[in-house]
């Protein structure tokens, strides 16, 4: 690969000179330089009048071309599949593509977006998506914080408890959906048996469209609060002991110490955990699909992710599905954008 690149560079240099008489010299200089690594800077200087890559070297540094072999192929593969696909998806959303005949790219308009704005199903799915993302993220953050504080309070068998709390995170959405379908079973599920013991229920958790979304949120909190705990635990352990001691000396109660001194310092952990949780919530498709073994999730849990897949793969409304996908993407972007800016301003990018 390196040899290949250096031969391209040499060729470009030659092209830049229009076939001067000292061709061979430049070639050798190029070879020696690239093989010698550190001598390369000198060679680049020697070929000042040269081609595009020399000018690129001057602008971005010799290391750019050297390191490109490493980062450019993965970057291009990822870029094409992620950003290329999103761009293509946007173009498809402007067509009328449906059924089995391929998209017609000659007639582009925003018709599908107008249709989505007037579709009660899309509006319901958008509201459900919003409710799911916000409530799941908030509850999982709060729950994980409590777990982290408890585990951090010098308890015995800390490792064992931590392992148990994080365990559901290693399971597939499909697997956890099986467990919770049984937990929520009307007659024999653990949830209704326990509630029955205190005189409540039984409640039809999955069948009642008013409450099923909260049942799903609860199950997802079970699966991911261990993740929040791990993030907060890392954050808590990074806070110097003096901060705890200082709060003690000032006579703060434990509760006050956490609320006033410790939790504010966990801002970075909260932001990074919240971003990941929101994205998990946007991906909850797998869980909802598994609850019913099909594209139509339980009534009251249709989110944009499930609506999009159903429109595309169940009824072949490809262009419409693409438009819904773009709406979902914009929701994700409104989360990621500020996060990236935050990371950038912290100098992490």
């Amino acid at each position, binding site marked *: 690969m390196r040899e290949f690149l250096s031969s391209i560079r040499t060729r470009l240099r030659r092209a830049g000179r229009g076939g001067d008489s000292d061709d061979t010299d430049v070639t050798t200089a190029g070879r020696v330089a690239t093989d010698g690594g550190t001598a390369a800077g000198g060679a680049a200087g020697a070929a000042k009048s040269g081609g595009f890559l020399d000018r690129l070297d001057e602008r*971005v*540094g010799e290391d750019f071309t050297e390191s490109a072999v*490493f980062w450019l192929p993965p970057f291009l*593969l*990822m870029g094409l599949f992620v950003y290329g*696909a999103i761009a293509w998806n946007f173009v498809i959303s402007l067509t009328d593509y449906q059924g089995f005949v391929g998209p017609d790219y000659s007639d582009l308009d925003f018709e599908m977006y107008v249709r989505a704005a007037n579709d009660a199903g899309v509006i319901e799915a958008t509201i459900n998506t919003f409710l799911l993302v916000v409530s799941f993220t908030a509850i999982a953050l709060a729950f994980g914080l409590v777990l982290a504080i408890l585990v951090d309070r010098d*308890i015995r068998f800390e490792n064992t408890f931590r392992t148990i709390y994080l365990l559901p995170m*290693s399971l597939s959405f*499909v697997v956890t959906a099986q467990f919770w379908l049984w937990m929520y079973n009307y007659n024999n599920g653990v949830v209704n048996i326990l509630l029955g013991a205190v005189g409540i229920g039984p409640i039809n958790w999955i069948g009642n469209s008013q409450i099923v979304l909260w049942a799903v949120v609860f199950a997802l909190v079970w699966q991911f609060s261990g993740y929040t705990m791990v993030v907060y635990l890392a954050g808590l352990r990074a806070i110097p002991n003096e901060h705890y001691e200082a709060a003690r000396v000032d006579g703060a109660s434990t509760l006050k110490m956490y609320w006033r001194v410790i939790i504010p310092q966990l801002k970075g952990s909260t932001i990074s955990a919240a971003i990941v949780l929101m994205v998990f919530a946007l991906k909850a498709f797998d869980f909802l699909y598994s609850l019913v073994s099909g594209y139509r999730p339980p009534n009251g849990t249709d989110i944009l992710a499930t609506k999009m897949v159903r429109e595309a793969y169940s009824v072949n409304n490809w262009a419409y599905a693409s438009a819904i996908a773009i709406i979902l993407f914009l929701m994700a972007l409104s989360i990621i954008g500020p996060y990236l800016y935050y990371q950038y301003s912290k100098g992490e990018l």
Partner: protein
Amino acid sequence: MSDAQSTDSEQSGALAGVREDLAGLDGYRVALYATVLGLTAFYLTPIESGLVTAFKTNPEGVSSTLPFAPPPGEFFTLEKWQTAISALGRGMVNSALYAVPATIISALLGSFAAYGLTQADWKARYKAPILALFVAAIFIPYQAVLVPLSQFWGTVPLAEVLAPVWAVGVPRAYTGVVELIITHVAYGIPICMVLFRGYYTTVSEEMIEAARLDGATFARVYRRIVFPISTPMFAVVLIYQFTQIWNDLLFALILVSTESSPAAPVVLILAGLGESQEGQDFALRMAGAFVAALPTLIVYILFGDEFAEGVAT
């Protein structure tokens, strides 16, 4: 790993500690341990209930026992496990066929990208947008790319390219497996890159500088220095990626499409398991859930610390 080795001594110490604790127990410690144990029950109940249910002949009929109680003798059966294993066995092999190569390739490419972007000294202002594209790609909902992905794999003549492979006797349905490998690699690269980058920024620059001054090329430094010292991070990334790829349903559903395909991954078969006209066979569903979860459970139990590190970063 190191955790497993240290537990023995830790536990005997902890047991002595528990005795001490019991001697001087105050209200605060009692409440703390009660909460921690209550939470343990909360996290284990769905799993425990699923496990005992998988051994019951007819969980809906066994209303005399609680859902988390082990089955009484006359309701105990291993039949559901046998059915689950025979239904999911093929799926387990299929999942391994794409999860293992996709995990290894995405980890390697992620490591290359992270090395290329951390250890190269080209101008920082060009790097930030590239890094931003990598980081943002982690958070893209897969729905935003599904339709083009279907179009793309519908256009690529993979079946013809793979004709020599089919000639060896591999069913044509396995194009889906190849598509899954490439797709999971492409979407796995960003997170792998970010994980490795976090690690490489902590690697001492002096060692690499010294090697560079000695005339080692950029590639040689990777092969001789950076790759060998990356092994702990490779463990983290491989575990994280394997869990993600094994557990993912959406790409499997879109690219393989039917659970009756000979190439169907285990999660796809599991999603439809125990579903019938008469209702749902919960015992079979539970047994299936445990069979499908087995590889990631084993990985989690053996490498819990690496797993935690992977998700927390």
